[in-house]
């Protein structure tokens, strides 16, 4: 008998009970009593086969109910479903009224029958197979469509679901719960049965979206939840296929898995897919699909279970993004920290993947920290520059050009990056700046403030060839990187500044020594002439004729003037350095200034071709015309000194929104690069020039005077074809 080959549940119960060591005394007594009952029962099993069977059935069904309760299977059956409970052998132990109704049998008469006997032929084999497979803990729930034999009637087609119940400790199969679902078939014998009601029970009351689809992925039926997820009505959706609801990429993946399902390689699959709502928006869903088969094992339709995981998905994506960014921040910070030069810092920054392929970048450092908003620094230097392609773009930022002509200071922001998305049309740029950037191949420019130790000391400019939009969070991320770089650059500069300061101190010492020598030489030269000729006239051993006497006296007079000029220069420079140079500022037009200076300029440049372009309609500046004329005279006399007689010298003036700019151009050989910075320092002279003279105070005094007018003086251009010096004065 088959029953003898299976483990007897009573022995199992005995083993379990005896194995308990954690019981209280009362419980132990109870247990002992129970064990003696079990012994008695086991003894009785030795009796007649009928008695044995009766007892076995009785206790088995009790045990089964116990096991079911333990596993959480209460005897709650969805309305309208037939329920059979069998033991591990497939012998029916319980049947509900609905099962009896479906099978046209009294439920109590079903008990004791083998479940396989409810069907014939291949359906019988299917039931046996389900029972056999229920032993495998992997197959807790199986369902299929099947034909059952019904007394005095044709076969009944149901979806049968076999729920295996396993012992939680041993894993052995203790019984199977069979749910019989007659599907769309309306049972006229049972007026309580209603298909819609059944559907609502299994379909509607779930918390997830569910859908039945044809094998061609056409929607047949969806639940309310699915409608809420997708925004479609139940009626709308019947005209649609899954393809219309899924993101194209995801539909491809789904189709692939669907093939595996149909060809039997998969029983079920779960995908994360993007669904398109009726309003066109997308949401992420976890979609589980399986097939329903007919009794012949042919797939009939597909069932989808769909849950919205958008929040989860978004959070996941944000997390991954955040992780990527922090990883990059770490890598870039590290690279910045070990950079040994400002160029290397720039390069490390440019390795950030979030920069989006710039075509040039530059680190601009102000000549002094920008502390007060109303007091912008005067110029900035390009400390490091990078461009994607070597040499095919025109040089962009000459240190001196940033302020007057292009009015860049207006763009810089202390606390946030400035994004000029389209340089060709941005209102914040003036016409020259727009042209400069367009010519330089820039589409979008982003300017990040560089700050360290709470001081704003410069700007990182980033150029993209194409229109390039940086999102807010990406910009924040980049700002983080730039802030780190800013500190690194500042400390690099500090080291360099320290070295420079040391050299500057040494140079200052040397300059002091040189100062005495130069001043001594320069003052002694006219003094020597004066002394020499005066003593010549006074000498009593020679009688000079009148012409000679006159000549000597005139020389004394001229040399005394020269000496006076030198002493004035010395006074000017010392007053400028002490900040006590007095200016008589007044509103004055460039034309008036040139008017004051013209005669002196003509005299100075008598040996050259002097051209003064003097447009009469320029706006006035607040200036001391005498001092500005002094500057012009000095610049023109330099031009005269350093270019060939007969060559041309031009003085020009023009204005933009904020400034008037004077330019003095010559055709001399240019200022050597190594001298360009030093010529504005007192007592420096361009030393390669043959006809050196003077104390080298001229440009230092000019710069001091222009500074006192809140303007700037710089070398606009210099080269073998000539030099243009420029200075600016702010408009009133």
């Amino acid at each position: 008998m088959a029953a003898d080959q299976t483990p007897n549940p009573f022995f199992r119960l005995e083993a379990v009970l005896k194995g308990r060591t954690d019981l209280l005394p009362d419980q132990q007594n109870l247990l002992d009593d129970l064990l003696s009952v079990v012994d008695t029962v086991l003894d009785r099993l030795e009796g007649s086969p009928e008695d044995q069977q009766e007892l076995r059935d009785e206790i088995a069904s009790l045990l089964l109910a116990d096991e079911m309760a333990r596993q959480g299977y209460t005897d709650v059956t969805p309305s309208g479903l037939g329920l059979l409970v069998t033991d591990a052998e497939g012998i029916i132990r319980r049947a509900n009224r609905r099962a009896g109704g479906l099978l046209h049998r009294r439920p109590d008469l079903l008990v004791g029958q083998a479940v396989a006997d409810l069907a014939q032929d291949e359906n019988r084999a299917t039931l046996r197979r389900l029972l056999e497979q229920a032993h495998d803990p992997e197959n807790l729930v199986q369902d299929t469509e099947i034909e059952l034999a019904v007394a005095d009637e044709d076969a009944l087609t149901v979806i049968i679901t076999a729920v295996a119940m396993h012992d939680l400790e041993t894993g052995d199969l203790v019984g199977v719960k069979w749910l019989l679902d007659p599907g769309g078939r309306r049972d006229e014998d049972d007026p309580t049965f209603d298909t819609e009601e059944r559907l609502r029970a299994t379909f509607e009351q779930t918390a997830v979206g569910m859908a039945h689809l044809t094998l061609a992925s056409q929607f047949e039926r969806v639940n309310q939840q699915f409608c809420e997820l997708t925004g479609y009505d139940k009626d709308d959706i019947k005209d649609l296929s899954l393809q219309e609801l899924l993101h194209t990429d995801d539909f491809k993946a789904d189709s692939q898995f669907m093939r595996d399902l149909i060809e039997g390689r998969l029983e079920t699959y779960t995908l994360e897919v993007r669904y398109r709502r009726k309003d066109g928006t997308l949401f992420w869903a976890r979609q589980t699909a399986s097939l329903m088969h007919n009794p012949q094992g042919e797939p009939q339709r597909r069932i989808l279970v769909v849950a919205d995981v958008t929040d989860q998905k978004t959070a996941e994506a944000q997390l991954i993004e955040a992780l990527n960014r922090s990883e990059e921040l770490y890598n870039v910070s590290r690279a910045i920290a070990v950079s040994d030069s400002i160029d290397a810092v720039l390069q490390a920054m440019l390795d950030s993947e979030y920069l989006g392929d710039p075509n040039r970048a530059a680190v601009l450092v102000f000549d002094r920290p920008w502390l007060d908003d109303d007091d912008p620094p005067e110029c900035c230097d390009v400390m490091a520059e990078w461009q994607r392609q070597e040499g095919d773009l025109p040089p962009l930022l000459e240190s001196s050009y940033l302020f007057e002509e292009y009015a860049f200071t207006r763009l810089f922001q202390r606390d946030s990056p400035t994004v000029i998305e389209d340089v060709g049309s941005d209102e914040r740029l003036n016409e020259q700046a727009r042209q400069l950037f367009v010519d330089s191949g820039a589409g979008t420019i982003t300017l990040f403030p560089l700050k360290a130790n709470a001081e704003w000391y410069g700007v990182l400019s980033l150029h993209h060839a194409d229109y390039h939009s940086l999102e807010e969070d990406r910009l924040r991320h980049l700002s983080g990187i730039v802030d780190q770089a800013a500190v690194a650059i500042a400390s690099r500069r500090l080291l360099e500044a320290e070295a420079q300061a040391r050299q500057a101190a040494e140079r200052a010492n040397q300059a002091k020594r040189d100062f005495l020598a130069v001043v001594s030489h320069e003052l002694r030269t006219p003094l020597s002439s004066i002394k020499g000729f005066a003593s010549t006239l006074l000498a009593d051993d020679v009688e000079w004729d009148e012409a000679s006497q006159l000549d000597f006296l005139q020389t004394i007079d001229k040399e005394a003037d020269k000496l006076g000029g030198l002493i004035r220069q010395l006074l000017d420079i010392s007053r400028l350095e002490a900040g006590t140079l007095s200016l008589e500022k007044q509103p004055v037009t460039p034309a008036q200034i040139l008017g004051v200076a013209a005669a002196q300029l003509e005299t100075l440049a008598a040996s050259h071709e002097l051209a003064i372009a003097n447009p009469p309609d320029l706006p006035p500046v607040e200036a001391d015309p005498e001092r500005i004329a002094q500057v012009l005279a000095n610049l023109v006399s330099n031009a005269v000194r350093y270019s060939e007689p007969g060559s041309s010298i031009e003085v020009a003036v023009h204005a933009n929104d904020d400034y008037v700019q004077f330019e003095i151009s010559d055709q001399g050989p240019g200022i050597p690069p190594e001298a360009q910075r030093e010529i504005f320092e007192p007592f420096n002279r361009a030393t390669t020039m043959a006809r050196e003279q003077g104390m080298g105070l001229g440009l230092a005094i000019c710069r001091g005077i222009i500074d006192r007018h809140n303007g700037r003086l710089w070398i606009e251009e210099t080269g073998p074809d000539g030099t243009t010096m420029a200075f600016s004065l702010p408009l009133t």
Partner: protein
Amino acid sequence: MTAQIMVIEDEVNIRRFVAANLTVRGYSVEEHETAESGLESMRLAPPDVLVLDLILPGMNGTDLLLEMLMDETLLYVPVIVFSASTTDLLLDRARYENVVEILTKPVSVEDLTGAVSRAVGTLNRRP
């Protein structure tokens, strides 16, 4: 015989002062603005005495002194040096044994003529 005096001085008025006073007192004076042109000329005909400004454009006075010390025809030409400053570090007397006097600017007629006549006076005692 009239002593030949060469003057190398870039400042035109000082050069004129030297030339006028030496000429009027009977010396023959040759004027040069740069050390280069003076050196070229004295290699053809060495002067009896050289009056030299140290600070010159191009080749300076000390370079010229060295050139003269390395040229045996110029080695013994006595040189009177004009210096702008007493603290002038350009000149190391021990190194330039051809320098006979240093005159610090400004220079009076007496200083100049005194130095020149002393230098000329030493000429006969030279080998």
